[in-house]
């Protein structure tokens, strides 16, 4: 049962990053490349029409996590208190940037909200990546100092950073140079993804430019990935042991690799949707291979005193998990139906369609 919910939540959160990921990426591209008002408007709309539905995946993923792994939810949310609240603030800015930009016709008004949308998208991508980095690296569970826990064994609290910025420090902060690299990887990945989304959904004048951009970013991503793997090995020599024990897990890194390789041929890809699929593979592969490398741990402990959090020591009761299975299946079927209906009714390039003057 724990395993089932772990996989479900991993899927929901991956879908969130694939869907809302293109909004983040769209925001990043918008910030740096959109110059003409027409482009700005269309690109903002390519995110604006969908962000709400996409963000619900986060809300649902959070809710499911709360239901299935309450101890984990409590530990992680209070431990990452500051970064999470900052993520919330950024989310607010991004959403109102998208929703409010077209409400007044003044250029100044639009410029402000365009910047709010772009900058908060960029920072959100960075923060989410950093968060993933933290979960891979692990935290000082129980706040151990001199061999003694100062909190209950499954609680912790992280400062945003400590002076050393080193992942090897006894009390690492949220931001150190390892988590920062993962953050940058997330920004690059989502920028690629966003560019693909703009190609798919619009006829903006920067579309031709975007393909060579994707190629360059992809090269950067390739280098960063290798670099991060090396660093990861230095921090945790056992990092990839899971893959040695369970070779079939290799499919996840393979997905990532497929996305990465495919995107080098972006200029030869005829159908825009194929590019989008490839960058989706990147995201899904990236998240799942990180999770698979740790399984069944979901938050490693960096000290010897307290054990890591796993899906087994943080889960809700067996009964709770199994009744949720009943409604969960019905719910997920409905969600897929909505998704299909929505994508069917709103398919195609949005600048060709009449979505009204909004």
């Amino acid at each position, binding site marked *: 049962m724990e395993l089932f919910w772990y996989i479900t939540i991993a899927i929901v959160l991956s879908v969130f990053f694939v869907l809302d990921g293109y909004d983040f990426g769209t925001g990043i591209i918008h910030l740096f490349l959109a110059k003409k008002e027409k482009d700005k408007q269309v690109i903002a709309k390519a995110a604006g029409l969908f962000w*709400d*539905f996409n963000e619900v995946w986060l809300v649902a*993923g959070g809710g499911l996590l709360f239901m299935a792994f309450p101890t984990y*939810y*409590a530990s992680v949310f*209070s431990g990452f208190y500051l970064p999470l609240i900052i993520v919330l603030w950024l989310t607010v800015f991004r959403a*109102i940037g998208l929703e409010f930009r077209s409400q007044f016709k003044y250029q100044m008004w639009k410029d402000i909200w365009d910047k709010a949308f772009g900058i908060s998208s960029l920072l959100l991508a960075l923060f989410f990546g950093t968060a993933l980095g933290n979960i891979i690296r692990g935290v000082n569970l129980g706040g151990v100092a001199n061999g003694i826990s100062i909190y209950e064994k499954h609680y912790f609290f992280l400062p945003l950073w400590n002076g050393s910025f080193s992942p090897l420090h006894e009390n690492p902060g949220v931001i150190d140079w390892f988590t920062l690299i993962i953050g940058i990887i997330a920004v690059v990945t989502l920028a690629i993804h966003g560019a693909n989304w703009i190609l798919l959904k619009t006829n903006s004048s920067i579309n031709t430019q975007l393909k060579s951009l994707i190629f360059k970013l992809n090269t950067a991503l390739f280098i960063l990935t290798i670099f991060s793997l090396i660093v990861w090995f230095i921090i945790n020599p056992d990092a990839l042991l899971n893959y040695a024990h369970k070779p079939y897990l290799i499919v996840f890194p393979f997905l990532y690799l497929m996305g990465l390789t495919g995107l080098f041929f972006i200029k030869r890809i005829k159908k825009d949707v194929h590019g989008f699929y490839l960058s989706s593979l990147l995201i899904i592969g990236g998240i799942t291979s990180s999770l698979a490398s740790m399984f069944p741990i979901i938050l490693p402990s960096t000290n010897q005193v307290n054990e890591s959090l796993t899906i087994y020591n943080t889960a809700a*009761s067996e009964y709770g998990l199994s009744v949720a299975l009943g409604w969960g299946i019905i*719910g997920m079927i409905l969600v897929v139906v909505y998704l299909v209906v929505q994508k069917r009714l709103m398919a195609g390039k949005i600048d060709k369609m009449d979505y009204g003057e909004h």
Partner: protein
Amino acid sequence: MIFYDRLQFAFTISFHYIFPQLTMGLSLLIVYFKWKFLRTKVDMYNDAAKFFMKIFAVNFTLGVVTGIPMEFQFGTNWAKFSELTGGIIGQTLAMEGIFSFFLESAFLALFIFGEKIIGQKLHFITGFLVFLGSWASGYLILATNAWMQHPVGYEIVENGKYVLKNFSALFSNPWLIPAFLHNQFASLVTASFVVAGVGAFYVLRQKNIEHGKIFLKTGVVFGFISSLLVAFPTGDWNAKNVAKYQPASFAAMEGIFETEEAGAEIILVGQPNMVEKKLDNKIAVPNVLSFLTYQNWNAQIPGMDQFTKEELPDNIPALYYSYHIMVGLGTIFIGLLGLAFFFLWRKKLFDIKSLLWGILLLLPFPYIANITGWYVAELGRQPFLVYGLLKTTNGISPTVSSGNTLFTLLGFAGLYLLLGLLFLLLIGKIINDGPKLQKQ
């Protein structure tokens, strides 16, 4: 310190609830307008649906962006509470995400932008689905709250955790249905006042008069019916539940300091004096409270003297005032809308300026009634987070220091001030542009 955590929750939820209370009620009225348009083919009803949809959209956005912090706060600020009860209230909260937010958000964009693409019939259906999603959301969040007010279907295991024993008990909780219905009709009161208020504004300003009259008519009819339903049976029903399951908060919210042998009086006016444990400047009617609660003029109702300090809510004056403000406002709404309803029926409403002004000026007050109503529920639940089981002081995050909470509280205050100003600016603009601009 727990003080900042409570203040932060109270502040952020009060702000969040400004938006859903309108969207839940308004979605029903929009569906009504759209349905009326399909039946009568009078364009003005479609204008009305589209006009209020614009107002809905702004409120919805703010509802979403202020709602996500609510869900996060369970984990960030109330971690111990989440750890102990997550296996239970996580069920209803997760269901809210899966069953209602998905539904609402999947079809909202289609409803707002899609009229020309999907055609009238489908447009009506998407509107209906948005309505369904928002009410389902209210239902599930109230199921969560009902469990905190009156926990059922759980069992306590060795490590002190509450685990779910009976899933369906969460939904047959006797607290849930009265609270849900009361809350939904209260949100319909807010929405009706907004619709009628905008109508009154247009008629008084001699602008968009024909649309204004339709708004007024609809708002007054829906508003009158829903304010009656808010008081009776649903308000009364809730009061009986509180008397039964939370007798200490009942005594506090009604302001009964001393138990009276021969039946309790109902307090209309008075200020609680916590030092001398009595009400100053009291106006009361003997025995009525006993009758309202137990249909027996002489039924005994325990006063605050029957409870220890640990059992009583920690902020009795705020609880008492909140309750009396809510009930007082409810009475005023029934009175004013009753009058408006009468003159609407006699076809004179649009000429009675003073009444139109009354409707317009009363517009903020349903918001106040709704927020104070929630203060009754939440302050009355104190000192427990889960009534009778878990003390509020035992629910906070063990590792988050008060300095951090104060920092984020200030951040939320600043951010929400900005949101509030933007909100008023946009709503003002939409109302000023008027429904006519919507013509195709």
